[in-house]
């Protein structure tokens, strides 16, 4: 989780938990010790009798922890041995969330502990049916969807993540508002930096909120390209409203900078998505980052020159 301010560290102690009245035959589910997933699981599974084996992932959810390797083969094997799972249950099957698979090698776990790993559904809400169907899940529940709602839930994190850089930008715009031949007054500076500030915040909103939620409907594949297109629309809208009285130099700067800002924030949403690959993002960034920097620098120079010439 990236909240920018402080990583949330909500964890529960690792170990074996009983839900309901489990017996030697009850299923064993494995999860991370991220408190929110743990609570969600308990809620979805209430009324059932089973064992919950919680791994030490330092308060990180299954997906992120699997990527880091903390939700991994070594931790799973040692946790199974520590709680002596082979004495607790008679069967030799454990159920892992499918998203944990990038950290766990099922065949190695079996070799080391005798337990067979079954990968369950992606979402906790599909678990009851999975258990009822004798640990079988449908193809459908094995596929990750990146729905409108998923994206909507993730966008606030992007906005929160941008607060530091946004403060710097707003401060810069304020200083730029002070560079004027008119007599200095706080009110004057504030009113001169109001429109640029609003335009910046608009670009932020376009890149880290509007682009992510409209993702499938914006042409192109690269996130930055999607963001730049909407950024261009926003620059155009701003040029006939907030910036209608601006000089030609400032308007040029507007069209150079605003799409670049939107592209930057849109590109940062790759980390929240569930379908971007490392190779893909690297390729996107190799092109997008220089273009974004060049665009912003050129725009900045135009803006400053326009103020003095």
């Amino acid at each position, binding site marked *: 989780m990236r909240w920018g301010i402080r990583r949330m560290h909500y964890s529960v102690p690792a170990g074996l938990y009983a839900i309901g009245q489990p017996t030697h035959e009850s299923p064993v589910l494995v999860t991370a010790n991220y408190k929110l997933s743990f609570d969600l699981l308990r809620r979805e599974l209430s009324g059932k009798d089973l064992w919950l084996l919680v791994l030490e992932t330092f308060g990180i959810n299954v997906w992120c922890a699997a990527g880091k390797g903390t939700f991994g083969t070594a931790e799973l094997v040692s946790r199974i041995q520590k709680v002596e799972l082979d004495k607790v249950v008679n069967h030799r099957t454990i159920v892992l969330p499918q998203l944990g698979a990038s950290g766990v090698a*099922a065949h190695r776990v079996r070799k080391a502990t005798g337990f067979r790993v079954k990968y369950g559904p992606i979402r906790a809400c599909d678990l009851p049916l999975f258990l009822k169907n004798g640990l079988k899940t449908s193809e459908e529940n094995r596929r990750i969807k990146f729905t409108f709602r998923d994206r909507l839930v993730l966008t606030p994190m992007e906005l929160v993540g941008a607060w530091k850089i946004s403060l710097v930008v707003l401060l810069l715009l304020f200083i730029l508002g002070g560079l004027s031949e008119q007599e200095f007054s706080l009110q004057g500076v504030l009113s001169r930096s109001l429109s640029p500030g609003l335009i910046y915040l608009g670009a932020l909103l376009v890149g880290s909120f509007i682009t992510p939620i409209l993702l499938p409907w914006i042409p192109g594949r690269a996130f930055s390209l999607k963001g730049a297109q909407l950024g261009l629309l926003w620059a155009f809208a701003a040029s006939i409203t907030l910036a209608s009285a601006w000089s030609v130099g400032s308007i040029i700067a507007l069209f150079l900078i605003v799409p670049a800002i939107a592209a930057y924030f849109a590109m940062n949403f790759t980390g929240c998505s569930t379908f971007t690959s490392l190779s893909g993002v690297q390729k996107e960034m190799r092109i997008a980052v220089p273009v974004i920097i060049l665009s912003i620098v050129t725009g900045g120079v135009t803006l400053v020159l326009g103020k003095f010439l």
Partner: protein
Amino acid sequence: MGLQYLRDVVTLELDRDKCTLCGMCTNVCVHGVLAVDDNGIHILERDACMECGACAMNCPAEAVTVRAGVGCAWAIFRDWFRKQPTANNRQQVVI
């Protein structure tokens, strides 16, 4: 198949000779990239792969390889400014 990212960038490779058709890779992949049928194992939707590494990790025959990592611009930025690359470090919230 919904959203797909850039074309022809993914590092996923299959060695069909090593494959024992156990089906594990198709089980763990959340994007349905791999499939086993009468003709053996093959890549169905290469561009849908997000290089999570789950298939390679769980292939007992080591028939699948992929450079696993996270498609996250932030993590890549951090690596640019760091001497040695960080381990696979996801910044996503799914569950």
